[in-house]
């Protein structure tokens, strides 16, 4: 493998022959940016390649198999769970060159795209047809649709419309043996075992999507966006269940706590009051009549839980401004702190008040600043812990706090991740929610697809050897050992 070698290895030469030299990076300095994603893990691949289509992708996979090196798929590298980290080196397959929207069939409400297409680019391409693609991760300006497939990504609007898997009709996939196949098709509910549904969310361990057929939805007639202002996170959390109790399922129900408001507002000027304990961003959509009735019910529910004020966006720009604060929130944390660790956990909606309180207490105990900006309607928490990356003790405390928050979610009957995936980050925690029997069954899926050791190794399933080499991984593994929650 090339470290400082002036000449390319046999692996690199074979890849160059298949893709052309331009599309193969192997010099260490060129590979630096491919050591990272948005998690705090890092590892350098031996080579990064940029195939242009399914056939080239398949050729790369076959070459990697021939040389017996791992394959790791990567989209925009925006994942928070280390899913695109080449822990064992090998070939990083970057999908950014496959970035064409191949078809927008407005009449049949579907689009066919390549995996490197950016989520927002698709939204913009279909909007003139009065259509939308429902999953809207907050990273939609940069995240790729292939990455969305791998992680079964969510976003604020998945509360009403469901995660990515509900919007994928079919995927063309390069399997771990290099074979190209289609899972699903161009219609809803293709016959047979739902391999499409299994593949979506498999975090690049069962293959690489090279074409994606997505279902589009029609834009709604009316939408109303509200900002409910509370004195405390607990009151805002209680209001979430109160809204649902009134038979209203908003399309989005997001929470921002005081910590994040004070970071976001000076940068974005979204209009969030700096003295609020928490705000809920609530959006209802549908027919004019139902929007009016549901908005009123949501406002009543918030007032009943002690909202000091509920503002309604009166125009599209006002609505966008309210959303801007939410969508740019994590970026604002990045500007305010040298480093942050964004967690992703889920609890039943009704357990939000006590869980949020416990999260705040735990952060205080570890002496760490923690901001919360998350999908409250889904019970999907995103505690965001700020720290100094040069302080090794801070890193340790951050990871310990992260582990503790994960335990809180599990104890509340929730889950380890709502939309960011298990990746490298949480595989040691899998034993908290799954028994050895459960994990064995999941291992069989991996075995059936033939990707076991080589295809995105060390991701999703807790595996014993050769994976836990990084500092972060070691700490997490240490935290995970008492598997008392199975």
């Amino acid at each position: 493998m090339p470290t400082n070698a002036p000449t390319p290895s046999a692996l690199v030469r074979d890849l160059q022959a298949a893709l052309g030299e331009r599309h193969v990076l192997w010099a260490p300095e060129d590979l630096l940016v491919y050591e990272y994603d948005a998690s705090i893990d890092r590892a350098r691949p031996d080579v990064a390649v940029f195939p242009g289509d399914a056939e080239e992708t398949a050729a790369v996979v076959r070459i990697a198999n021939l040389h017996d090196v791992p394959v790791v798929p990567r989209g925009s590298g925006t994942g928070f769970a280390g899913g695109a980290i080449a822990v064992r080196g090998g070939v990083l397959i970057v999908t950014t060159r496959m970035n064409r929207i191949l078809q927008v069939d407005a009449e049949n409400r579907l689009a066919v795209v390549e995996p490197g297409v950016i989520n927002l680019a698709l939204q913009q391409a279909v909007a003139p047809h009065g259509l939308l693609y429902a999953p809207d991760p907050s990273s939609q300006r940069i995240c790729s649709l292939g990455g969305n497939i791998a992680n079964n990504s969510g976003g604020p609007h998945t509360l009403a419309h469901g995660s990515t898997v509900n919007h994928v009709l079919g995927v063309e996939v390069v399997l771990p043996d290099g074979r190209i196949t289609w899972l699903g098709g161009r219609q809803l509910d293709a016959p047979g075992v739902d391999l499409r549904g299994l593949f979506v969310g498999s975090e690049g361990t069962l293959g690489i999507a090279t074409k994606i057929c997505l279902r589009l939805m029609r834009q709604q007639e009316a939408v109303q966006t509200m900002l409910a202002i509370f004195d405390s996170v607990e009151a805002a959390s209680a209001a979430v269940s109160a809204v649902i109790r009134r038979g209203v399922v908003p399309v989005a129900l997001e929470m921002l706590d005081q910590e994040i408001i004070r970071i976001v507002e000076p940068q974005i000027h979204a209009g969030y009051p700096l003295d609020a304990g928490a705000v809920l961003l609530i959006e209802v959509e549908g027919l004019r009549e139902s929007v009016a009735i549901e908005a009123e019910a949501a406002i009543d529910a918030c007032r009943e839980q002690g909202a000091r004020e509920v503002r309604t966006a009166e125009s599209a720009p006002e609505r966008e401004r309210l959303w801007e604060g939410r969508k740019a929130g994590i970026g604002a944390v990045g500007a305010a702190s040298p480093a942050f660790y964004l967690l992703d956990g889920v609890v039943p909606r009704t357990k939000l008040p006590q869980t949020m309180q416990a999260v705040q207490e735990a952060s205080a105990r570890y002496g760490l600043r923690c901001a919360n900006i998350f999908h409250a309607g889904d019970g999907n928490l995103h505690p965001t812990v700020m720290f100094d990356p040069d302080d090794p003790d801070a890193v340790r405390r951050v990871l310990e706090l992260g582990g503790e928050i994960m335990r809180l979610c599990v104890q509340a009957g929730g889950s380890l991740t709502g939309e960011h995936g298990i990746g490298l980050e949480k595989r040691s925690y899998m034993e908290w929610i799954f028994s050895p029997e459960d994990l064995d069954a999941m291992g069989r899926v991996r075995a059936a697809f033939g990707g076991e050791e080589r295809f995105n190794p060390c991701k999703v399933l807790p595996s014993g050897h050769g994976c836990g080499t990084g500092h972060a991984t070691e700490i997490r593994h240490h935290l995970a050992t008492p598997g008392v929650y199975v």
Partner: protein
Amino acid sequence: MTSPSLDALRHAVPSDIEREPHDYAIDGVLPRVAFRPGDRREVADLLHAADQHGLVVVPQGARTSLELGRPLGQYDVALSLLGLDRIVEYVPEDLTITVEAGLTLRHLQEELAARGQYLPVDPPPHDRVTVGGLLATARAGAWRGYLPAARDLVLGATAALPDGTLPKSGGRVVKNVSGYDLHRLHAGALGALGVIVEASFKLAPLPPATRLLALRARDERSAARLARDLWDSHLAARSVALLAPAAASHSGLHREPYVLLELAGVEAAVERSVEEARALAGRAGAQVEATEGEPWRRLRALAGESGATVLRMGVPATSLPELVGAAARAGCLAWGYPAAGSVIAHAEAGLDPAAVRALREQAQRHGGFLQVEAASTELRRQVDPFEHGDAEALRALKQQFDPRGTLNRGRWMEGV
């Protein structure tokens, strides 16, 4: 019946769960033995014992979709899931419920309705099907397209495997990407990769008001146009169906092309939708007829009836009227749901294989598919009920989850 292998099976489970085989015939074949376990452990023990002795087990619930799939080559053990019919946990404020697989959808909906909620699916025949059957068959009804499929609503599940294990996947929260979604794999797998014993679902509030309109069109072309216009309009719709004349006639309507529109939502939205639908119908020269839901009831009964040939085609919405027409000309009662891109064809007296193949080819020309949902044993021998996306991957999964072919062997394809 006694034999060493069946005795081994009986030893694995308490004696009081054995049933009379004659109630469990499939395609005219009786199982050698039948059981109705009362808990998941018994299900897993039964599967394990059968697996050790080379017996083929056919899991079944309300027995409403037994003609979905290829005829079985071997049928030793009937495994009824009706004994597993408990509600494990219902948290109305979280809009989630966890139930055992043998609970009927009807019972579930009654429990939920008492709290103003429902599971928003209407598979055929929705008054009898069990929750396990709903998932295993992945059949959808008139609401699909506007509402999610059952597999989109399942949050997690536990399945019994032939090795006697009971792995679970997913969880009970509404958003979760931890691990592989085995519950999605079992949804639609006809019990060939494991027997679902428990599942958790995401629920929805019951709409405060519903209405059904029958719109009688001048001709087939204007019916197709009207269905499309309704789909494109902002209505509180839960379903739009395009009916060929014979299907309309069977539903108690005139023998003319119809569009059925089901509205659901808050009263004011439903009211305005009725007005807008009337206006669209008026422009299309269609008559609006009052209906109390009888056509719906009759269509749903058809989609679930056994003895006849029932086909489901998936096609682009733009090709849907053509396929409804083609199925009608082939002698079927035919109707389609533009929002789901699905066409249902029902032939009381059955269809000949050539007609089914012709419809399949036509659906495929439009990039679609045809699945045989029910048919005579003979027809299902001559025409593959399914189209397989990736047979190799399916075989590999079967090899991992059921290497000896204990579960429903041959229902999917030779050996699977």
